[in-house]
């Protein structure tokens, strides 16, 4: 804002105050999910004229959804799984044990950390039975979800 040529005649301090005030107003409105009448009333109390209030509200309405998404994504949560990769292998032998002949799965859960943006993936191996157990439990969770949405 300080570099904008249209605004260069205005005192930078005033500009900063205006920006901060506008940002606070927008964020607070977004946080409370305020509707347009509430915002208008609030701005009327601040002695803004009708035209400006209308302009503000129109712009706000255009960006409301994006704002809500942004605000909703702020906050702490456990590591979030974004994807899964798997590998099926058939073990034949190791230096300790020959003729093992066992299928084995290697599963990696791709994880995203909203704080640091790092990707500490979780990898583990499992047998076919264990993978069936895992998938069974995930399906239980999904079924529960479906039932919850129908309530």
């Amino acid at each position: 804002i300080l570099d904008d040529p249209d605004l260069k005649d205005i005192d930078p301090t005033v500009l900063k105050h205006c920006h901060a005030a506008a940002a606070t107003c927008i964020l607070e409105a977004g946080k409370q999910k305020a509707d347009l009448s509430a915002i208008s009333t609030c701005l009327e109390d601040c002695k803004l004229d009708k035209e400006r209030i209308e302009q503000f509200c129109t712009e706000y309405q255009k960006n409301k959804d994006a704002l809500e998404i942004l605000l909703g994504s702020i906050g702490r949560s456990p590591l979030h799984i974004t994807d899964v990769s798997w590998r099926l292998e058939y073990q034949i032998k190791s230096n300790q044990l020959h003729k093992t002949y066992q299928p084995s799965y290697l599963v990696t859960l791709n994880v995203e950390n909203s704080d640091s943006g790092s990707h500490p993936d979780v990898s583990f191996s499992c047998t076919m039975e264990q993978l069936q157990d895992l998938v069974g439990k995930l399906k239980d969770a999904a079924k529960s979800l479906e039932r919850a949405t129908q309530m």
Partner: protein
Amino acid sequence: CAFLKGKLNVAVDTIQHGVEGLMYLLTESSKLMISELDFQDSIHVLGFSDELNKLLLQLYLDNRREIRSILGELAPKLPSYHSLEWRLDVQLASRSLRQQIKPAVTLKLHLNQNEDQTARVLQTDPSTLLHLIQQLEQALGEMKTNHCRRIVRNMK
């Protein structure tokens, strides 16, 4: 060892060598999973009595499964799956945004690594959950394909 020495009137060293020899015989045989016939042929060269050979064979057959499972633990490996707990949550509000309805599935994944159990708490959203299920079901289905079946058959 001292106890055995007394009983058998034999030097401690000899007993130790005997035990080690026996250990080596059993672990190598179990590791390679040799057949009864091969085992008998192998120990025949040692020149023991028939009765002793029969005893050794029986010892091998009785214990090889357990020995193999212990040897199996020595191979390099990653943390392995133990179990999974899950929970459905709905986020209703946060410091930054009120009046939300955000469903989430919280998972606690229990893994084993070298006798330590670790638990990781992870979260996912409903659509990713369905995606995970679909992907892992595909993984399970792979073993039943012709390709995998052919390899398993030919590797015996």
